């Protein structure tokens, strides 16, 4: 799921120009691919600036940027929590917790993301609403009137697709992040846990104060990479008619038949976001490596 692992190569490539190698060698080692990517982006920017068709496409598509950003950020925030809990479950000695976490991770990893989006939004959420309703009825019967009526009154239809999309992405990515957290925790030597326990700390205290601070620092770049991947995969929520940039681009293309303008603009928008975010992740990685 690494997104642009070769970006650092691009940077090293540019340094080639300043070396004293023969011209032919410098030309051979220059990162032409990266230059091409920048040229494509510049050309698109120029097209948006100078051509009405492209400008119109851009103005229509950019409306969806807020939904894409909010969906990605909120879903990622929830996925971090789910992932941390499931990751702790994967290394837990509790049979129930461990099996529940493993079941979650393996189920999600074995199903295509597109199918998961449909399933969670259209089957998972309604099912959970039914359970909550049933719980409400039960509480009502027990005499907990107010709580019962609130829970019993939740309507499936009242949950907007945007929210379902966020839940779907969060549940899906939670499973991926769980594996990252698990790997991070397992990368910390046994001695750390033993030292903490020998001082009388509980397992939870040792995790919180000793293991997790080190583990999370180790996996920050991997978490960053998964956020970039999440931004790309947020395009899948367009199948739920959520108006992210992909959905508004589809609508625009469908109504005007300007497929080229719509999808060139859309692609360059994604590329700009992912390349910029990948560079940030790389800066973070370098920062951590220097301090570590």
């Amino acid at each position, binding site marked *: 799921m690494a997104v642009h692992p070769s970006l650092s190569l691009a940077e090293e490539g540019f340094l080639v120009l300043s070396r004293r190698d023969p011209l032919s060698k410098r030309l051979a080692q220059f990162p032409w691919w990266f230059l091409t990517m920048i040229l494509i982006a510049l050309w698109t920017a120029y097209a948006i600036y100078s051509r009405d068709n492209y400008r119109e496409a851009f103005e229509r598509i950019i409306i969806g940027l807020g939904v894409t950003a909010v969906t990605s950020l909120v879903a990622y925030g929830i996925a971090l929590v789910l992932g941390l809990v499931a990751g702790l479950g994967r290394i837990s000695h509790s049979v129930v917790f461990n099996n529940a976490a493993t079941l979650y991770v393996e189920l999600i990893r074995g199903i295509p993301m597109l199918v998961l989006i449909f399933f969670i939004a259209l089957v998972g959420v309604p099912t959970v609403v039914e359970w909550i309703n049933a719980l409400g009825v039960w509480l009502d019967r027990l005499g907990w009137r107010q709580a019962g009526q609130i829970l019993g009154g939740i309507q499936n239809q009242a949950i907007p697709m945007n929210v379902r999309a966020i839940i779907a992405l969060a549940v899906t990515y939670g499973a991926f992040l769980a594996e990252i957290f698990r790997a991070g925790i397992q990368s910390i*030597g046994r*001695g*750390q846990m*033993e*030292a*903490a*326990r*020998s*001082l*009388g*700390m*509980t*397992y939870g*205290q040792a995790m919180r*104060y*000793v293991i997790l*601070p*080190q583990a999370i*620092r180790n996996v920050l770049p991997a978490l960053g990479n998964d956020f970039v991947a999440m931004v790309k995969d947020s395009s899948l929520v367009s199948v739920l008619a959520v108006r992210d940039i992909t959905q508004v681009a589809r609508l625009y293309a469908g109504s005007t038949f300007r497929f080229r303008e719509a999808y060139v603009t859309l692609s360059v928008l994604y590329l700009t976001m992912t390349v910029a975010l990948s560079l940030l992740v790389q800066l973070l990685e370098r920062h951590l490596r220097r301090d570590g």
Partner: protein
Amino acid sequence: MADDIIVLKNLHKHFGSVKALNGVNLNVERGTVVVIIGPSGSGKSTLLRCINYLEVPTGGEVWIDGRLVTSNPRQLNEIRAEIGMVFQLFNLFPHLTALENITLAQRIVRKRTREEAEAIAMEQLRKVGIPEKAHAYPGQLSGGQQQRVAIARALAMNPKIMLFDEPTSALDPEMIREVLDVMLELAQEGMTMVVVSHEMGFVRAAADRVILLDEGRIVEDTTPELLFTAPRHERTRQFLSQILHK
């Protein structure tokens, strides 16, 4: 009956088919220093780690200060807080400074305030001779300094017992001295110590008892003087000639 702070009864520990401990009985009187020696794989570290239940014994009983140790998490944490442990590889928390390493457990286990914990931490750092390193991270310290911080971290909990698991075997020769000096001082103050170590200088200077472990059993239980002059068992003689002529 003597004041035995550690009582091990018929202790067994099996790792699969390997019997690391095979029926160990040991009483340690309060205030004594016991050094455990033995060939590698004889179960020395396992024995030490069974005392604070970092390894849960397969069979037998561990009594600490009159309480039977069980796997009950709450009781176990209480007992562990009374037993300081020093590891071969120090196991300092690398993301915390020396001072924070020493205050962390004081604050969350002993529930001391920050000021209280820091005052005790500085006192312990002075005792091990490196108060000026309070704000250094473990990565900025030498091995000997790290081990001294680890000892200070354990002492700050006011333990009744200190366990040392080969505390000098990961150190460069010139740093062994500084760690042994701290241990020696501790022994003179009357701390109950169980030490796995082959530092014969420390055995001569500080040990009240020396125990030779072989194949998970106590082979010899004697004093340092008798160990060198009149070892009772052939196995002890063999082992001593090996480590003294290396």
